[in-house]
């Protein structure tokens, strides 16, 4: 039993001869508190899978359940509420609102949900991601790394069932990327936060508990992570075949 349960998920784009099968039958479970990395070459279906698991897109066939709720049959409104309460996002390009301060950006999901922020919880999250002294700054006054910290705090603040992170370090230099990964890892450990991260960087995947390898819309390997070298080896093995 996982907080995410996907069964035989397929996704086809377009029709007829021009149709592309982005996902060709994927089943997976992610357990509560687990940090899973999704790896694979470009075009293997990572983003598509993540979008379907997060309720942003619908599978062509198959089912997805989040925290026991079957989501493939939900309408737009229900999906929106699911995302609001059960899902957090960290994007490659941060996607912060330029008009809001760091703190306001972090509180945005609570605002949208119309729920009152618990002061201590919010403080702990801001502290955790290391933004204590920058909370009054606007995104334009923050570095890329700081912006991504804001994004992580924003994902954490509503205590979602799962956080999805799509290439969270893709737009950062490697040193900053490493910092961000450390922040993510720490958050997962501190809050037992289930997290799924899409990446094509072996170094990034190495901090996860488990790595799923995608190729041509199928899971070709599902292994616990030890270190970057180990993952590189798996990648090399996969590409050799």
């Amino acid at each position, binding site marked *: 039993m996982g907080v995410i349960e996907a069964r035989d998920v397929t996704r086809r784009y377009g029709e007829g001869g021009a149709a592309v099968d982005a996902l060709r039958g994927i089943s997976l479970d992610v357990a509560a508190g687990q940090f899973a990395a999704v790896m694979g070459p470009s075009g293997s279906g990572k983003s598509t899978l993540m979008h379907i698991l997060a309720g942003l897109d619908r599978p062509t066939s198959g089912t997805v359940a989040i925290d026991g709720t079957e989501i493939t049959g939900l309408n737009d409104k229900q999906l929106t509420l699911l995302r609001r309460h059960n899902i957090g996002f960290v994007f490659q390009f941060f996607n912060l609102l330029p*008009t809001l301060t760091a703190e306001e950006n972090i509180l945005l999901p609570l605002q949208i949900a119309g729920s009152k922020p618990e002061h201590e919880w919010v403080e702990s999250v801001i502290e955790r991601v290391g933004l204590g002294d920058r909370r009054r700054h606007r995104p334009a006054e923050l570095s890329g790394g700081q912006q991504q910290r804001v994004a992580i705090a924003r994902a954490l603040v509503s205590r979602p069932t799962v956080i999805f992170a799509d290439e969270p370090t893709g737009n950062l230099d490697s040193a900053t990327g490493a910092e961000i990964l450390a922040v993510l890892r720490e958050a997962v450990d501190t809050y037992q936060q289930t997290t799924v991260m899409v990446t094509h960087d072996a170094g990034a995947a190495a901090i996860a508990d488990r790595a799923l390898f995608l190729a041509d819309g199928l899971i070709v390997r599902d292994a616990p992570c030890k270190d970057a070298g180990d993952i590189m080896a798996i990648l090399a093995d996969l590409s050799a075949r």
Partner: protein
Amino acid sequence: MTRYALRSMASHKLRTALTAIAIVLGTAMMAGTFVITDQIRNAFSDIFGTSFAGTDVYLSRRPAFGNGTGGAQVGPLPASLIGRVRAIDGVSKADGQIQAIGSLVVHGKYLSSQGGAPNLVVSTLPKPFNENTLVDGHYPNGPNQVALIQQTADDHDLKVGQHVGLTTLQGVKPVTIVGVFQFGDVSSIGGSTIIATTFSDAQRWYDRVGKTSTISVDGEPGISPAALKRRIGAQLPHWVKVQTGTEAAKEQTDEISGAINSFFTPALLAFAGAAVLVGAFVIFNTFSITVAQRMREFAMLRTIGAMRRQVLSTVLGEALMVGVMASVIGILAGVGFAKLLGALFKAIGFGLPLAGISVHAWPGVIVPLAVGVLVTLAASFAPARRATRVPPIAALREGAVLPRTWLSRFTPYIAGLALLAGILLVFQGVTGSGPTTQRLLTIAGGAILSFIGLAMVSRYLIRPLARAIGWPLSIGRGASGRLARENTTRNTGRTAVTAAALMIGIGLVVFFSVLINGFKQSFIGSIDESITSNLIIQSHSQGNPVPEDAVRAAQGVPGVDTALGVAFTQVKIGHGGTDAANGIDPATLPRLYKFQWQKGGSDALLGRLHGDDALVEEQFAKSHHLAPGDTFQVTSIDGRHVTMHEIGQYKDPVLFSGFMVSRGTYSELTTDHNPQVLLVRYASGTDENATTRAVRQALKPFPDVNVQTNSEFKDSFSKQINQLLYLLYILLAMSVVISLFGIVNTLALSVFERTREIGMLRAIGTTRFQLRQTILYESVITAIIGGILGIVIGVVLAWVVSLGFRSSGIVFAIPYGQVIVSLIVAAIAGAVAAAFPARRAARLNVLEALQYE
């Protein structure tokens, strides 16, 4: 580059369309103005052409002042002139005609004309002067016979043989309808009722015994009208105006044209101008936004070798095409607008005869086209210049910003100066001397400058205003209000210009509301303060007097203490302009009117008012430098000179401007001594309602007389003023509508710009409804900012203008109700404008939006 500009337009059809509409509506108003004024001119030209078609020479009284023929005011000619003219060699025929005001009474009901057109009574002229065409029966040839114009007969279902009444200065006369005619070959002249009688009936009934209004002359074959005119003129005194029929037709047509050209056309064009100005703001804003959004594109053009000039011409080329396209559509739509205006005027009781629609290149096509294209180009020039300053490197970098120019440091000061200078110009125009046209142009220029100045200043007010207006939206739960508030302050320049476009429309609405309210309050206030009568009685027909017999009838009603006729007419003062001469009865006026005595004036003095004595209004004394004891010259419209002697001064610039003389002296100054207004006061202790009923009963024989209590009179006055105001509102609605498209355009472009942000918001749990709400609030906040700015500038300008009218007794009074309504209208406009962009935003696909670049 032209092809590039065309492509760009085609790929942004919606943006192009919304931008074009801003100019289409303004140019449509302009073109429509030219069309309808042309229609009116042509209609009158046709009417007068028909009237004088069979007349070789035309005789009337020469007015002593004014350029006009002045209608009945000018006074009649002695009827003996007809015989003298007939005796002149070369005259084959000469006949007199009486023109008066009156209408039929059918089953006790007074038949009014349509849409405020006049109720005319004319005596029948024989052939060849009579250009009417009989449709039924015959022309009156005996006593108590009338013929009607076809429209009047049709409208009221009147038939030959029917017995009806005709209002005259001697009460209602029983008449029989003996004929129905058309004027030339048309059934109506702009909705006027026209009743034809015999010459002798008209003389008796309309106080013209031994007199005639005009004389029409037909020459013997072989003598030209011009020669005959000279011959007749040589034998008649100078106060007889002798014209050929053609000259008379031309003069009367020109008089109407003059009124149209000097008032009607400029007034309508001013509203069209306001619409065009609003359009300019919308275009400026749209081009500014799109230039900002296309920065990468321009940078790319520069990297591949495009010159700055080429970038400039890309943007200006697009503007040129939008301008031409929009103006052409506008000119075509102008015909529709002209029809709308015609219907509108008729609806508010301002019916005018309209000839068929014809569109002339000058000015109907060329002016709107030139204005539309030039305004579009001018408004897009600054954004186009900005586009040229995009550095090529911006193609490679995300979020590059344009360098600020050195000029931009001074913008706030320039803006503030423009605002102040604009207001001062308006003040200068109102209070300054000089020709009216020049002063009006100064006022208009000042208003435009102050609008532009405030638009520029408002950029610095957006933050505090948005914070204040958005505050109620941001309290409580919900992110929509807060996000909306932040969005309005995101690009203050953009919000400022969007709001400013609405500001102009609302500003003008408020400006006119305040001014007109001041006028209304002054008039009603003066009546409340000074008039102590119970009834205020006037004719239903504008400008028609109340018969002296009606005054006597009212006086005879038990319970009536005083029935006093007040007469007034225009006279020429010295060698200068004209002013009002008021004929009053000094013995009874104080019982109905409270004087505000000034220098040397007192109720006792009133008792000594006789002969050439005059009481003068304070302003009149000021402008003619008069003190008690001084004398001044007046000339009546029929050329009589009288020297008046000032004995004292009073103050009432609203009800009794000019000067007061006794009714006896007044008859020296006028051609019609009947009063215009009848004031009735009841004896104390009488039952008001019963007495009012009794007066109504006693005045039954004068059905064109409108018996109103003071409050009824004030109400109907307010109603008339409000109708004028509604007309102004409708004309200004166009400006508001254009600014609405401006809001739609800005929001749509902003939504497009924030696509990825919207995707993010949706991803983290914002519902479609919340998203719509955010955009709705953003729009409403922007619109309310526009409304507030408009109210401020409208009130300020109205106050400045009212300063100039203070001496005429016009007060400055803000109609708070109307001001609040205009703010609500602004908010509603904002809500309406949000509908489309909000729907667009809500329908965005979350995934596509997130991946949008």
